């Protein structure tokens, strides 16, 4: 039996680095990482079969439901190798799987010596997996290619083994074949991890340096920081210091996760575990930072620390204005656990009081919004997402614009926008479609490679703003769901950009303003004025809707004045019913937002800022109200 009872396993703080193996699993969302992890917990017997549950390591409900791992974790798995019958300790470091969390992924990778590249052998590798694989290769990690779900009838292990072999430069037969579901091949995989992945190397006598690769807020314990010790030793007796802030902290607890927290005396070279210092906010214990000891501090930090930088901005407003304090509270709470989330109060003439929020990317934005709504029971409107622009005005002033409403009036010298390098993986039949889409979105082709006979990797540079605006949805729908996308910021470039304002009866509606490329301004203007014409009910006066760049009108629509709004009959028996209808209409009217004299239903804002499907819903509601 290769499992080792915990009590008899090598103990944290005293484990010889030669017995350690630190690895992570790189996989796409639904390629079975969590199931494989569950299976490893079972085979190594760190979880009692009675306590086992699906996706054991995914803590938050939202993770389990969406099948996305947002926060990584590290699990200590004692293992006796079937190859040499020696005792080892495997640290499995779970990595987030999505493009928005590339930096977190890179730090998780930096804590490992090897990676299991897990690919669903019915689907093949996806763009995000490929991006993370490249990251792992850049970090000089040993890659173990593994084909998962070999039990599936649709499995094509030969085809995808070739694809993997080509990507990482090995032989197709080097790819292990497992099934997380049935457990087939998982024991062999654990043995191969021991055999192939190098043991960590560090200087036990040097000043302590530990890499923070994750930091999680816990309601009861405060911030729990996950670390990998590179040099030296961390123990409960130490006072520690963060390199980036220089702030000193008491160590309240050190331990490992196996997979429940187990307090230990400390952590030695190469070991992975957690520390608790009583810090209340993850921003004081940031991913990528180096921990050293206060008494014997290291001189040089570990490489690679970066402040998380928001890339995408959106306004979040409570549908019910009275919920504004609740939204603030919810954001404050969320920030304890999300160092990348930034926000500041914003007021919109149309939407009232809310917050301008910055996110790592679209998924991050979606997750934050969903958590706010779910955990604090809020209903929110989010404005169309935008990126950060650097605007140089005619008089040479440099402005950072994260909100179209901050876009300066008057002469603009130049505008710079963020650019990303995007990688799309797809069946080769979609090459034309994908290129067309990227071309439409101001893309520049960087190159294209065949991964296998019928699958290609296409690389483009694109303005981030184009990706933020429904690029992924378009890509998915035009390739019938087969294409996958990854992107990474590579800098900024000057763009021929303008701000398009939308005016209702001559009044600018801030929520609908957008910064767009000059060639697309007209399309945006006609799209938005057209949408609003459909969404805003007729009123007792004509409502001109205009799209304008500065003082120049580029598109116009108009909502004709309503001519009939009266019930023809009102006799004895109708009166009560009519009064009740009137009261209902009065309530509806209170929920209208006034833009000048124009009543705009809440739904119109929501729908104008979101997708076509939502517009139909809003129309149905507006009709009900009439």
């Amino acid at each position, binding site marked *: 039996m290769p499992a080792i009872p915990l009590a008899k396993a090598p103990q944290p703080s005293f484990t010889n680095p030669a017995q350690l193996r630190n690895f992570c699993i790189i996989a796409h969302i639904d390629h079975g990482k969590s199931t494989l992890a569950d299976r490893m917990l079972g085979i190594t017997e760190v979880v009692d079969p009675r306590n086992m549950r699906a996706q054991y390591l995914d803590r938050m409900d939202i993770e389990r439901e969406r099948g996305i791992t947002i926060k990584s974790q590290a699990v200590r798995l004692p293992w006796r190798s079937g190859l040499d019958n020696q005792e080892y300790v495997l640290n499995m470091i779970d990595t987030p799987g999505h493009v928005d969390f590339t930096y977190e992924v890179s730090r998780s990778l930096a804590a490992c010596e090897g990676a299991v590249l897990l690919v669903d052998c019915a689907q093949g590798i996806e763009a995000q997996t490929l991006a993370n694989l490249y990251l792992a290769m850049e970090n000089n990690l040993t890659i173990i290619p593994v084909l998962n779900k070999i039990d599936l009838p649709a499995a094509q292990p030969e085809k995808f083994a070739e694809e993997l072999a080509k990507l990482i430069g090995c032989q197709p037969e080097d790819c292990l074949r497992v099934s997380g579901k049935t457990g087939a091949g998982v024991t062999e995989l654990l043995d191969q991890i021991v055999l192939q992945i190098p043991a960590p190397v560090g200087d036990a006598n040097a000043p302590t340096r530990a890499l923070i690769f994750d930091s999680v807020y816990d309601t009861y314990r405060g911030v729990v920081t996950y670390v990998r010790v590179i040099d030296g030793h961390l123990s409960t007796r130490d006072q520690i210091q963060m390199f980036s802030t220089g702030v000193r902290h008491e160590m309240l607890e050190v331990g490992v996760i196996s997979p429940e927290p187990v307090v230990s005396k400390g952590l030695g070279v190469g070991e992975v575990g957690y520390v608790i210092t009583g810090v209340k906010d993850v921003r004081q214990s940031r991913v990528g930072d180096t921990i050293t000891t206060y008494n014997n501090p290291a001189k040089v930090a570990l490489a690679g620390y970066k402040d998380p930088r928001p890339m995408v901005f959106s306004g979040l407003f409570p549908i019910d204005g009275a919920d504004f304090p609740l939204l603030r509270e919810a954001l404050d709470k969320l920030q304890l656990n999300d160092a990348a989330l930034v926000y500041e109060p914003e007021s919109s003439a149309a939407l009232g009081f809310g917050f301008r929020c910055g996110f790592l990317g679209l998924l991050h934005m979606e997750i934050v919004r969903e958590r706010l709504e779910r955990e604090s029971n809020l209903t929110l409107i989010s404005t169309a997402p935008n990126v950060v622009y650097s605007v140089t005005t005619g008089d040479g002033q440099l402005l950072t614009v994260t909100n179209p409403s901050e876009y300066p009036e008057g002469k603009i010298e130049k505008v710079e926008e963020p650019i990303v390098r995007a990688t799309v993986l797809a069946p080769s039949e979609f090459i034309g479609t994908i290129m067309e889409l990227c071309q439409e979105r101001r893309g520049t082709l960087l190159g294209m490679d065949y991964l296998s006979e019928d699958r290609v990797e296409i690389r483009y540079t694109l303005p981030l703003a184009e990706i933020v605006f429904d690029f992924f949805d378009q890509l998915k729908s035009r390739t019938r769901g087969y294409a996958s996308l990854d992107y990474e910021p590579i800098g900024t470039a000057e763009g021929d950009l303008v701000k398009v304002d939308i005016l209702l009866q001559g009044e600018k509606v801030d929520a609908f303003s957008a910064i767009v490329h000059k060639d697309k301004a007209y399309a945006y203007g006609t799209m938005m004025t057209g949408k609003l014409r459909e969404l805003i009910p007729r009123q*007792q*006066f004509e409502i001109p809707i205009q799209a304008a760049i500065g003082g120049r009108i580029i598109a116009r629509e108009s909502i*004709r004045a*309503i*001519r*009939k*709004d*009266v*019930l*023809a*009959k*009102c*006799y*004895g*028996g109708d*009166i*009560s019913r*009519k*009064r009740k209808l*009137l*009261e209902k*209409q*009065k309530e509806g*009217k*209170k929920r209208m937002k006034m833009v000048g*004299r124009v009543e705009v239903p809440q739904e119109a804002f929501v729908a104008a800022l979101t997708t076509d499907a939502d517009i139909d819903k809003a129309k149905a509601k507006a009709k009900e109200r009439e």
Partner: protein
Amino acid sequence: MNTLAFYVHIPYCVRRCGYCDFNTYTPGELSITNDFSVTSRSYIDLLLREIEYAREVSTAAIVPSIFFGGGTPTLMESKDLGRVIASISSNFELATDAEITTEANPDTVTEENLNELRAAGFNRISFGMQSAVPHVLAALDRTHNPENVLKATTWAREAGFAEVSVDLIYGTAGESMADWEQTLDTALSLPISHISAYALIVESGTKLGAQVKRGDVIMPDDDQTADKYLLADDKFTAAGFNWYELSNWSKPGSECRHNIAYWKGENWWGAGAGAHSHIDGRRFWNVKHPAAYTQKVIEAGNPMQDQEILTLEEARSEEIMLQIRLASGIPLSELSPKERSSLPGFLAGGYLLGSAWERGSLVLSQSGRLIADRIVREILV
């Protein structure tokens, strides 16, 4: 002395029209197989008991008007309808000039009927003409021959009805502007003193409602319906019929006093299945089904289903909602500054009569009448 108008509901029709959501039942629906005169007699007996009950719970009052509506009141024997008038007259004090109206179907009345109705005490009759165009009538499930309307109104005049009115409906699916014009011209050629013209309302729970929901019937858009209102108002005015309520026009002095009582918030008693009453800020209504009505009257002596007592705010809402429909309008002095605040905008938009405004009254203009509900919302929010 107080006044108390009477509405008498007759919940029977020979057949149900597709657009109608009134509280009415066909003999088939009620499984009535015998001679309808039996039903007529027994229903009237119940009405008499309710009138006696009304007398018990009311203070003495003068009755300025009685209105028989339905359903089809003329399905009842004329002498039975006469018994109701007699009962009201004996339990209350019928005004000497009381207006006593019945609704009637132009297809089913005879010269003899009309003489009987006159003899029973009726002096006003309102015919459900709806349209003069056969395909429009067919779309409304109305069966009458348009020519019968001229006959019926002429007979009514000859029988001595002082006031003869017709009801018209516009905005039926398939009705063209020319169709409507034809209906208007036909109506104006009749020997009548009063016209009601209603835009068709699609009610849920009716056959028409279901057809519209399924998309089998497409209703004309509101702008065309608005044009029809304007055409009607212009033609009526030119012919000497003045609007006195949104959907009602009459020769001078021929306004329906009974209906004005509703709009002015007077007291009235509604007798019969599902009828609504209003007494001093209290609204109550009877159980709807004839069988339930029968049981309640016999067992409890009181057919009331439920009631509501209006709060001050509700009473105020009703007052504005109803009086704004009238040509007499609302004195501006009775509106609070807040209620008045939206009015200058409507005045500027041409929705209020400038001449009335200068005299200190809120009176809707032609275009204002068409958006009366919107103006009420603005006043009250």
